[in-house]
Structure formats: structure tokens, C-alpha cells
């Protein structure tokens, strides 16, 4: 009888097959401004937060792109634009060959099957009044991916896939620890067999030992299911561990994008250099021996970002051109290594244009 029912339900249609290594997603000149309104009745727009400002990149099937940067650099906003949680101010998102940036909610439905998000806070992203089974089966029911028995079976599979036991299906989120909750979030994201998973700081809220467990889980799932990841984190160690390529963001822009190992061995942008040198190393001798670059000041407000290169007020190598002219993202050094800087570092040390550089007295 159940078999009959199943036959009546629409089957999940597969999206176009995209082989590993081909472009799965392309972001083109993505801009997202948030208006700042003021006034009681008329709500005039008095300014704009330049959250994401002209970002372009490509993502190939099967790879992991790491997005790093400090709070407020726009990495989460970019992710939400890609998942179309936010509408873009301008630019386009091409996913599986289709420009989804103008899609309506209805048009987005099939896209959402292929593109899922895992959020940072597993306490906030799971409904506390629903049982785990209902949380994970929600996407399956919304997309009518089978009858009740099939859905139940799939939920049990998913729980085991993420390392939970299928007996836990009737529990509530509060009965789980932080790491287990994040596993539930992962199971929900994988329910519809997506191609692309955007993980927005998936391990930042977790303790070190649990963090390693979840990272290993995401790694295994990628191998098993051939997933493509966009992995957002502010922990540079974690990003290096999971990523094939890494994009560094600063104040709404990608300042450097490169294959992972290359970025850590030969950073080209002074911001990347400073960011890497600020990460504490769990080795006292190394920690004492290495030269740390401490950036002065805070990240400027994205409401009125600095002219020219947005990093220039904090950059040790900044010169006149940096104040006036915005550097473009261009190829530096090896294949696929791009940076937006007027004085790119060579060999990860001195800027290529060092002669013209006046060191700031702040050093």
C-alpha cells in the first residue's frame, strides 16, 4: 500500500549533472548595501552599509572555498546573498548555469534543494519545540521527497551519517550537546542531497575537541557525497585545514584569493600577512621567535569606507596611490593567486615596490 502512495508522489528531479572540477557557482560583481533609515514617518535613507562591495569569484564542483576575514568584513552577508537569503543590490549569482539572482521565492525552491546552509549557532538554528526527527524531515516534507515511511527511513540514514544514533530521533534539541546539535544541523542541510553546502562558522561556537570532530565529519561527508563547500570561519587554522582555495575579505571586498597552501606560505596582500601573523601559535619557541605584525586601530566603518584601498589606513606599506586609487584584484605569482594591492609582497616579506614605500612611524 505504501508503494502505491509513493508512486503518486512527485519524484525529486535531479538538477543538471555538473562534473567535479567544472564551475558550479559564479558570483559576478555581487553588491549588497543595507540602507540606514532615519526619521519617524518618512524613513529617509541617510546612508548605506557597504556590506559586500563588488565581489566576483568562481566555485568548482567538489572543491572547498574558505572565506576568511574579521567580523564585519561581509563574509556572512556574501554567503547569504549566494543562498539568496538576502536579495542582491546588484550583480548576479550563477548557479548550475542559471542566474538565480532575480529568482522569485517559487523559482528558488528547486535551487534550495541543491544549495543548503549550515549556520553558526546550533542553539538558535534548531526549533526547540520540534523533535529532531521533525527538524531533519522538514526539508524532505516541504519538497515532497517521498512518503512517510521513506522520509522516516531517510532521517534515520541521515542521523547515522552524521554520527548520531537513530534512536535519538524523538529527542528535542535541548537534550543534545553543542557538537551534537551542529551534527543535527548538518543532517538537515544534507537531507535533500544538495550539491553545495554553505557552512557559516559551523564550528566557532564549539569547544576545541568537539570542533575537531565536526571538522572531520564535514571532511568525510565531502568525500562520501562529493559535496562542494563554501566554508566561512574566522579561525585561519580551521580554514586552512578544510579549504582547497581561500578568499580573504576586508570591508566588503575580496583582497586576496589563492590556493590554500600558497596563501599561507606566500601571502601577497599586507592584510593577509598581518592576519596570519596575528594567529597565536601553540608552540612557545616558535611564538617567541616569530615577528608579529600588530595592526593599529580597528576596522573602519563600512558606512563610509576609506577611499582608494580600503586597508590603507592600517597598512604599513601604504603610499599616496593607495589613498586615491582602488587596487584591482589581479594575478600575482602562481596560478590562481590573485590579490588587490598596489604594493604586493614578494616572497611573503617585502613589497615588490618597496623603494617607493615610506614606512609608517607606527612600527
Amino acid at each position, binding site marked *: 500500500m505504501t508503494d502505491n502512495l509513493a508512486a503518486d508522489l512527485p519524484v525529486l528531479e535531479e538538477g543538471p549533472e555538473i562534473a567535479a572540477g567544472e564551475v558550479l557557482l559564479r558570483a559576478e560583481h555581487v553588491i549588497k548595501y543595507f540602507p540606514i533609515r532615519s526619521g519617524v514617518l518618512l524613513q529617509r535613507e541617510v546612508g548605506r552599509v557597504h556590506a559586500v562591495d563588488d565581489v566576483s569569484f568562481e566555485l568548482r564542483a567538489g572543491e572547498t572555498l574558505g572565506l576568511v576575514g*574579521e*567580523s564585519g568584513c561581509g563574509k556572512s552577508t556574501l554567503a547569504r546573498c549566494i543562498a539568496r537569503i538576502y536579495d542582491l543590490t546588484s550583480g548576479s549569482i550563477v548557479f548550475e548555469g542559471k542566474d538565480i539572482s532575480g529568482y522569485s521565492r517559487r523559482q528558488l525552491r528547486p535551487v534550495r534543494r541543491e544549495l543548503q546552509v549550515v549556520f553558526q549557532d546550533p542553539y538558535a538554528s534548531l526549533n526547540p519545540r520540534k523533535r529532531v526527527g521533525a527538524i531533519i524531515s522538514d526539508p524532505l516534507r516541504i519538497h515532497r521527497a517521498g512518503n512517510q515511511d521513506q522520509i522516516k527511513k531517510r532521517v534515520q540514514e541521515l542521523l547515522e551519517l552524521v554520527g548520531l544514533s537513530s534512536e535519538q530521533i524523538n529527542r528535542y534539541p535541548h537534550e543534545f*550537546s553543542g*557538537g*551534537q546539535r551542529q551534527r543535527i544541523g548538518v543532517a538537515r542541510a544534507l537531507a535533500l542531497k544538495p550539491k553545495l553546502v554553505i557552512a557559516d562558522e559551523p564550528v566557532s561556537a564549539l*569547544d*576545541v*575537541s*568537539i*570542533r*575537531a*570532530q565536526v*571538522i*572531520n565529519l564535514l*571532511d568525510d561527508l565531502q568525500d562520501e557525497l562529493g559535496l562542494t563547500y563554501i566554508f566561512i570561519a*574566522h*579561525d*585561519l*587554522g*580551521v580554514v*586552512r*585545514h578544510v579549504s582547497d582555495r581561500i578568499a580573504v575579505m576586508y570591508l566588503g571586498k575580496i583582497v586576496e584569493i589563492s590556493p590554500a*597552501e600558497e596563501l*599561507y606560505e606566500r601571502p601577497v596582500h599586507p592584510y593577509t600577512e*598581518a*592576519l*596570519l*601573523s*596575528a*594567529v*597565536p*601559535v*601553540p*608552540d*612557545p619557541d*616558535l*611564538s617567541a621567535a616569530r615577528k*608579529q605584525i*600588530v*595592526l593599529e586601530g*580597528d*576596522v573602519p566603518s563600512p558606512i563610509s569606507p576609506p577611499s582608494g584601498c580600503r586597508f590603507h589606513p592600517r597598512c604599513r606599506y601604504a603610499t599616496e596611490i593607495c589613498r586615491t586609487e582602488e587596487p584591482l584584484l589581479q594575478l600575482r605569482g602562481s596560478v590562481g593567486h590573485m590579490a588587490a594591492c598596489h604594493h604586493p609582497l614578494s616572497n611573503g616579506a617585502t613589497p615588490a615596490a618597496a623603494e617607493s614605500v615610506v614606512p609608517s612611524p607606527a612600527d
Partner: protein
Amino acid sequence: MAVPLLDIRDLKVTFRTDDGLVRAVDGVSATLYEGETLGIVGESGSGKSVTMMSVMRLITDPNAKFEGQVLYKGLDLMALPQAEIRSIRGAGISMIFQDPMTSLNPVYKVGWQIEEQIREHEKISKQAARARAIDLLTAVGIPNARERVDAYPHEFSGGMRQRVMIAMAVSCNPDVLIADEPTTALDVTIQAQILNLIKKLRADFGTAVVLITHDMGVVADMADRIAVMYAGRIVEQGTQRDLFYDPQHPYTWGLLGSIARLDRPRPRRLAAIPGLPPSLMRLPEGCAFGERCAHRFEACAQQPPLLDRLGNGHLDACYLTEVQKHARRDRTIHPELVEEKP
């Protein structure tokens, strides 16, 4: 040996709850000497914050019960009346917390909050207190301190707020600064600024620091001695070099192995610790780490005491012999590097 500035002796903290007794801190002993930095490392629920909050007598929960002694310059803080504790807080021992926004009062100007603290402990005029506040804000690296002294906390960024907290904490020249995850809420570049500031204050004023953190990288940068806590107990304690270059306890190995490090080749997998920390309401008999430990054997059914097993002041709570530890350590911390060796 010199007399320690702060001497915690067998501190136990329990909370009575509807579901049973929570053993948050279960027999912690530690010392802090003048001018040194003690790092306390552990994950959420390991008891590191409760230990130091108890030292400051900041836990007012009526269901909390304290045992043991905390000697500060010979005075037992646990036995002092609240009024006397207040005179020590801020002037003798002060504390900064993870989230500066919740520790600053949002409706008062930051200058006023620093002045209040100074005037509480010293007989000093309003003008003099204000001048001190401006000096302090300058010392912690707040640009334009003369104007910023009249700003409210929300007008500062996270890093700047933490600087204000530090200015307030050191305003009365305390002997001990307890920093509870002072940089956890901050970005790495700002974290580097704040850690450098703490180093500078430590050098300028000789303040002893207790640094509570979950980040092994931060203690590698800052601490002279380190205590590793797990499930309310110290499982290993030693100098910074001991902990990083000769770690003895399998939990410390697990912590070191779990980090995705920038200074090592990228392993295929991280050496994660399996399982979860035990519930503090139902601590297992024997070693609390036993359930998650790959090296567990019969002896572990009894709780291992924290002892100086190497005879050099490096304490650990693990029954494995020195030879066994030596043989198993590297395999646990970075299995892949060991495999590749011929």
C-alpha cells in the same frame, strides 16, 4: 621558595540543583607567584571560570557551597566578610571578562566608571580621579583619551571596550589581574593588540596574571606556568615548556592534537578526542577522562591523584608510566607525522 601571592588550596565548589549536585570544581590547588602569568586551559564546563570567580567571591548563588582555602597575602579570602572582600577586589585582585559589553554599565560614561572605581578605593578628589582615568585610557592605547573619557560604552568597538575594561581593572594597581577569556570575543588582529597590552602592563607594573582561556596558542604566547583543567579538576600542571614539549596527560595530548595548526603541515584528519565531557552531576568513578581516553587500563577505575610523577614539579593525573607516556604521546597528538617517519 617565595611565598605565593595567591594560594588556592583544595578548592571545591558545588551547586545544588533540582536534578542533583553539580561538582563544578572538585579539589583544585594552584599557586600564583609575584609577577608571573598562570594560564588555565580547559573547555566549557571544566571549572576554570568558576574557580577564579570563587577566588573573587563573585558567586552569590545561594545554592553554591564552597570548601577549601584561598590565601591572598596570608588572608583566607573564603573566610572574609563581604565588606573586606570589596576592599581587595579591584585594589588587590581585579578581573576582566570575556564580554566587555556586559561588564560595562551602558548608561554611564566610561570615564565615570573608572573614576568610581578609583574613588571607591582611594581618598582622592574628583578632578584627580578624572585625570587618572584619562592617563589610564591613554596607557591602554585609547586614542584621544581626553575626549573619549566622556563617551558611553556603546560608542567603542569591541577591542576598545576591552581596553577600557583593562584600564578599569588596573586603575588601583592590583597585584593580581585575572583575565577570563579576555580575547575570545575579539578578532585575531584585535586579540593580538589586547594580548600585547596585557604583556606591556605586566612588564610596567609587575602585575601577576591569571589567564583563563581555551586557546593553547594564547597560553603559548603568554603563560609562564599552565594548568589544564578537565571536569572540575586539574589534570596537568607545569611550566609552559613542560606542557608544550613534554605533555604527560592524554587529555593535554588530545587538546594539542585537536588544533588545526598553522605551523605544521596540514594533516589529512585532525586527531579529535572522541565523545563528550562527562556530566558534572554524574562524574564517573575513577578518571573523569577515562571514557574518552584511548590509553585507559584497569587502574583508571580509581581516580588518579595529581602528583609530581617526574620529580621536577611537573604534575599530572595519569597512571600511565613515564615510558608508556613517552611511547604513546606523539602517536596521539599527530598520528600522521609519526606514521610517515621510517
